């Protein structure tokens, strides 16, 4: 048992945090909402300089943890770029971004940015997403874009699909942590009724409930990442469980942070507003809480849910398996683990373990 994050992940997160802060922090998001071209001009190159293209989260837990921490940092700044989708794209595959959509889904955050975009739906069907129309200004999820999805002859394995969901959950975690930190700072310093708001028991209880939720999500996020590498057969169900927790936590923390801030928290110049508006894309796309819960119980029905009393033979007391056993029951075509590069291979290439190439047709 070792609950510490790998040192490389901590260092990578520190470097990312410093780089985004140097670029303006949350101000980058505000500027990008006024000038969406800044995403490609500023945000993308910042990630390039951090070396994200050299980071292969399928290469091992350390690299995956570093990638997840980058998503978490980005979420805390409402960083205006599809960081999770970029990191979920298998290096060398030709796909720039990999995102999740609901079955028949037509929205992808930031899909107006040049791709190519590979999208995977809730049953594992993949396609190439193309932006349908010019992006329109809107208050919530300012970069969510309507897309059309055309099937492509590739498939994604369970672990690849789980990585998309897991990285997105880390982004939500970062946003929830920052919204909570803003609320804590506010109630410690804002004085009403002759003292800091933090002196009021009702405020304390709200802060405590949010802290417990955030701490719990932190632990679950790390656990899920570890399970991707030790029990890849459960990758999809574990990632859905993490998404459920992330959506619940974000909802609790954002609503309480707004309440504790009062009207100032809704002002465009306040970071809380920017965080809330931006994270709505991750909270609604590809699925909201109820729909994610539905997907979760379907996945549990199909393959079980790991725990102390997992009814699957041996799972209750044995150490997690290091190899996939196809137990999730999902119709994905490849249940291999991260180290096996789980993107499935199109027919007719001799079975070589290569990534599907960009669909140029």
């Amino acid at each position: 048992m070792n609950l510490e994050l790998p040192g490389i992940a901590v260092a990578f997160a520190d470097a990312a945090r410093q780089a985004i802060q140097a670029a303006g922090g949350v101000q980058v998001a505000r500027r990008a909402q006024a000038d969406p071209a800044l995403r490609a001009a500023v945000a993308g190159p910042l990630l390039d300089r951090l070396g994200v293209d050299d980071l292969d989260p399928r290469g091992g837990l350390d690299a995956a943890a570093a990638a997840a921490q980058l998503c978490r940092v980005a979420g805390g700044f409402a960083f205006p770029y599809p960081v999770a989708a970029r990191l979920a794209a298998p290096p060398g595959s030709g796909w720039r971004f990999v995102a999740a959509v609901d079955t028949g889904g037509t929205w992808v955050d930031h899909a107006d940015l040049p791709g190519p975009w590979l999208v995977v739906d809730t049953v594992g069907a993949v396609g190439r997403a193309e932006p349908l129309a010019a992006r329109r200004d809107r208050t919530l999820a300012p970069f969510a874009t309507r897309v059309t999805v055309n099937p492509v002859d590739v498939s994604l394995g369970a672990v690849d699909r789980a990585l998309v969901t897991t990285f997105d959950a880390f982004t939500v975690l970062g946003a929830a942590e920052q919204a909570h930190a803003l609320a804590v700072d506010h109630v410690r310093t804002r004085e009403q009724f002759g003292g800091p708001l933090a002196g009021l028991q009702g405020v304390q209880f709200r802060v405590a409930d949010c802290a417990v939720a955030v701490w719990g999500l932190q632990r679950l996020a790390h656990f899920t990442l570890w399970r991707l590498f030790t029990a890849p057969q459960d990758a999809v169900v574990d990632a859905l469980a993490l998404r459920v927790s992330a959506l619940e936590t974000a909802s609790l923390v954002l609503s309480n942070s707004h309440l504790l801030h009062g009207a100032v928290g809704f002002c465009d110049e306040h970071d809380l507003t920017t965080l809330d508006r931006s994270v709505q894309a991750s909270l609604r796309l590809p699925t909201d809480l109820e729909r994610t819960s539905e997907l979760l119980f379907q996945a549990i029905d199909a393959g079980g849910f790991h725990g102390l009393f997992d009814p699957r033979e041996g799972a209750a007391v044995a150490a997690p398996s290091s190899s996939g056993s196809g137990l999730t029951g999902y119709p994905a075509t490849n249940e291999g683990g991260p180290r096996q590069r789980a993107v499935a291979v199109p027919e007719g290439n001799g079975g070589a373990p290569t990534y599907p190439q960009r669909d140029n047709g």
Partner: protein
Amino acid sequence: MDFDLGPEAARLRRSLRDLVEEHLPPGFLGAFTDDPDDLQVTQRFAKLLAAGNLLTLAWPREFGGRASSVWEQTVLREEMWAHHEPRGAQYMGLNWIGPAIMRFGTPEQQRLHLPRIAAGEVIWCQGFSEPEAGSDLAALRTTASQDDEGWVLSGQKVWTSYAQIADWCFLAARTGPPGSRRDGVSVFLVPMDRDGIEVRPIASMLGPHHLNEVFFDSVRVHHDELLGDEHAGWDVIRESLAFERVGIARYARADFLLQSVLQRIGGFSGLPVPLRGRYARALVHNRVARLLAYDVVAEQDAGRSLPGDAAAARIAAVVGDQEASDVLVEAIGPAVLDSGPEADEQLHADVEDYWRYSRAATIAAGALDIQRGLVAKAVLGSAR
């Protein structure tokens, strides 16, 4: 980063499940039922564990323990709670009274008490709550007045679990002046057969032995029955409660029942549609509660005992416990009311028993809002 509890813990879990299967009767719902045989089952089971040196896994060898890892101790807590705590009342002595005596006791107190706790031969009760000092424990009024021969106890405790069957009481009393709050509390180790102690059971929906009143009428306590320094009892209590807050692995019984009921009803299709999402989320919340408890264990193992973390783990566990019990009851429907010894379905009796227990989860070991206050204090610090 590695969440595996290790091969020793996995082996221990298998051994404990084998013991449970072999030695607990079908339908066992714990020591404290209307059937007095259940109490005897737990006394035998505790001695069986002690014979295998499994009661005091994490205790140091010098105190009769096996010096096992905290993770093996965690497995023991999980397996025992999941199976209706077949150690009966023993868990209290093992999990926090014993450790408190190790930490604060004299060598004589350690020699007297620890081997008997380790052998499963002695039942303890905890004399903390009073009629006017529940969550506000620092308001306790039971007094211990010093004289040449030691101390004289007078006052009343209430809600004292196991007092009727306990051999000893881990008792908090006021040794300072009235109103001295935390600065005037001391802890005593008091034999329950001492003259002047009267126990009156309180009937409750939790079953027998859970709630009692204990009256102390000029009870003589010797000098060597004071634990730690005079007036320094709050340190002992605080540390004891920190152990208690993570001591009960409530998530383990929730996990057992959530998985068992789901299997019995044939998966989510056997649930009403509106309940399916809630049931799935209960499984997730239970996983989170387990991970938060592991975090506290890891912190304690590293010598860092953080009250905010322990309280957070406790909140997640008890809230998750009540959520799980609610969805389980709704999964079974009105048939859950047909429980008790003659229930058609043992699982229904399990769930009914679990639901009743979970009602008290947000009170035991510090009410939920006290825990929220501790978390808030950790987060907000001096501005609070």
